[in-house]
């Protein structure tokens, strides 16, 4: 008796019109998975509900994967030739493939879990970029698989000619969805690889600008869209591969001219694209879990990009057009101005802060680079023990990724109710005795409010100069911030520069506080 004849009603089939038909139970399961993902994001409205939300995400993913495995059991068909009767087709489970699939999941699980355990929080931006590249590549691979075996995905009609091999004609709408899916997936992949290299320091943070790059990019984009449209009329392989190849190229070309510190916008943008790629695949496969997820992730990335751009007061187009900013290691000529500035020592800083009623600490990317978050928290604890109120002020674009500073402070055991966003804490600087700036630069520059000629004019900044005293940690007076401008803050009367490596300086302050 052919095994698992009863499985037929679970298996995805195609109806008379050769459209993908999925069992209603499977569709329902995918819908539930989508709901779980919505709840996962909803949980992030506060740290209290966030861990429960993450569990919903895991449940949703499990539902989606198990449903797929159960409705797509790999089946192999044998022809049983018997002496007494006609040949019989027997279908049994293809155990080899089952093992291969489980092994693939297992390998991925091990790599993923080990990486998650080991990664330093200061390397989160690179990790996220690397993960995005995997989603992009997976989308491309699924798209290619759908192109090579469209019957399995139910997106084609089989044509059996009188002579020659049968071949599949992919539905026109599916061709558009497929084309978009591989294009967006490829852009996500190559763009994320470049973002990873820049964030990880393998590639300089300086923007690399090719001559005529805007023309090249627009031409490539037009070519890709044009080919996708043409693909509808002609499903030849060369068109499909060209779309894929051009998309890889444009992903690379788009990200290469963007400076290192604009990466928060880039990573958010690529996050968004990985969502749209998943959505496009969801349309191709008529899968509601993928469509819902794609929409969620796409909107999430888009909103984060918008928030980042607003916080820098630059338009999204200007960021993507690239060419802005110096790399953080562009030592540059010594600050051109001969304006006088005050220098302080760790003991001065310790004295000022221990006498203060309130100290606001302003961390930035430099703190992450110096890995100073733990000693910073120690300093905060010592100050609190002396009765000083300690708060942390985070600018939205501090760091290389949205929310990066918050994670680093959380890792250092800073309670999250001591940490405030710009809008909530900016008015307090005027009543604060000491503002302690460590690793942030452009986001504290008062020129953004007053100097119309400055490239950072109009950018929302933290009003640190309103504090009674400002302590600013920097390695040396030479060199400029990311925007290439000197910081007016340094030369004010109430500012004291602490010139040393951030971690060393804070350690010295901690010693002096004893």
């Amino acid at each position, binding site marked *: 008796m052919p095994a698992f004849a009863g499985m037929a009603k679970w298996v995805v089939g195609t109806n008379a019109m050769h459209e993908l038909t999925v069992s209603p139970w499977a569709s329902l399961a995918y819908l539930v998975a989508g709901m779980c993902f919505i709840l996962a994001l909803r949980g992030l409205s506060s740290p209290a509900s966030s861990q429960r939300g993450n569990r919903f995400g895991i449940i949703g993913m499990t539902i989606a994967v198990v449903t797929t495995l159960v409705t797509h059991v790999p089946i192999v068909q044998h022809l049983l030739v018997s002496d007494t009767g006609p040949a019989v087709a027997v279908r049994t489970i293809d155990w080899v493939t089952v093992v291969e699939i489980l092994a693939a999941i297992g390998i991925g699980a091990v790599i993923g879990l080990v990486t998650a355990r080991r990664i330093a929080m200061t390397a989160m931006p690179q990790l996220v970029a690397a993960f995005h590249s995997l989603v992009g590549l997976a989308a491309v691979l699924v798209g290619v698989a759908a192109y090579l075996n469209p019957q399995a995905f139910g997106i084609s009609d089989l044509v059996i000619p009188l002579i020659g091999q049968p071949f599949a004609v992919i539905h026109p709408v599916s061709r558009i969805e497929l084309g978009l899916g591989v294009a967006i997936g490829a852009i996500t992949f190559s763009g994320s690889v470049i973002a990873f290299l820049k964030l990880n320091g393998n590639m300089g943070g300086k923007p690399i600008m090719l001559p005529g790059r805007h023309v090249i990019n627009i031409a490539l984009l037009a070519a890709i869209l044009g080919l996708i449209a043409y693909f509808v009329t002609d499903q030849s392989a060369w068109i499909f591969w060209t779309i894929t190849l051009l998309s890889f190229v444009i992903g690379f070309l788009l990200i290469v001219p963007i400076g290192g510190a604009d990466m928060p916008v880039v990573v958010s943008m690529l996050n968004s694209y990985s969502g749209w790629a998943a959505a496009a695949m969801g349309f191709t*496969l008529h899968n509601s879990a*993928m469509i819902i*997820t794609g929409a969620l992730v796409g909107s999430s990335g888009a909103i984060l990009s918008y928030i980042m751009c607003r916080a820098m007061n630059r338009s999204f187009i200007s960021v993507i057009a690239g060419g802005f900013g110096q790399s953080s290691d562009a030592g540059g000529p010594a600050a051109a101005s001969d304006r006088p500035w005050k220098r302080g020592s760790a003991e001065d800083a310790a004295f000022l802060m221990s006498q203060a009623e309130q100290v606001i600490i302003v961390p930035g990317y430099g703190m992450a680079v110096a890995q100073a978050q733990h000693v910073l928290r120690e300093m905060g604890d010592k100050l609190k023990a002396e009765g000083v109120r300690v708060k942390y002020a985070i600018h939205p674009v501090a760091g290389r990724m949205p929310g990066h500073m918050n994670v680093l402070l959380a890792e250092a055991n800073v309670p999250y109710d001591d940490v405030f966003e710009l809008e909530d804490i900016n008015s307090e600087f005027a009543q604060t005795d000491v503002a302690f700036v460590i690793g942030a630069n452009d986001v504290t520059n008062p020129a953004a409010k007053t100097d119309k000629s400055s490239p950072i004019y109009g950018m929302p900044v933290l009003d640190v100069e309103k504090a009674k005293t400002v302590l600013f940690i920097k390695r040396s007076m030479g060199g400029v911030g990311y925007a290439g401008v000197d910081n007016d803050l340094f030369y004010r009367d109430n500012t004291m520069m602490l010139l040393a490596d951030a971690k060393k300086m804070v350690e010295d302050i901690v010693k002096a506080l004893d």
Partner: protein
Amino acid sequence: MDFIAILSIFVLACFVGYFVVWAVTPALHTPLMAVTNAISSVIIVGALIAAAAPTVLGAIGAGSGVAKALGLLAVVLASINIFGGFAVTARMLAMYKKKERPVAK
């Protein structure tokens, strides 16, 4: 499902996404990126379909053997993202603590 039905789901999901993501507190934007990356790996569904598909008539070009291999590779990549993404998110979320209230004044 016909195209209009899935388009409707997509549009509604975009609306939901808009409101849900704006409600995420800025302090949790990094875990947001990590978890959205993890859930976007639901593309593993497509990869599993490719990997489990039987060899059928009508496969273009090299045939569905290549499609299956690519599907398996995509399963590995997506699994890395799923397990790694949720694990790193959980690790980050566990770090966020409130101020400890003093036991006695």
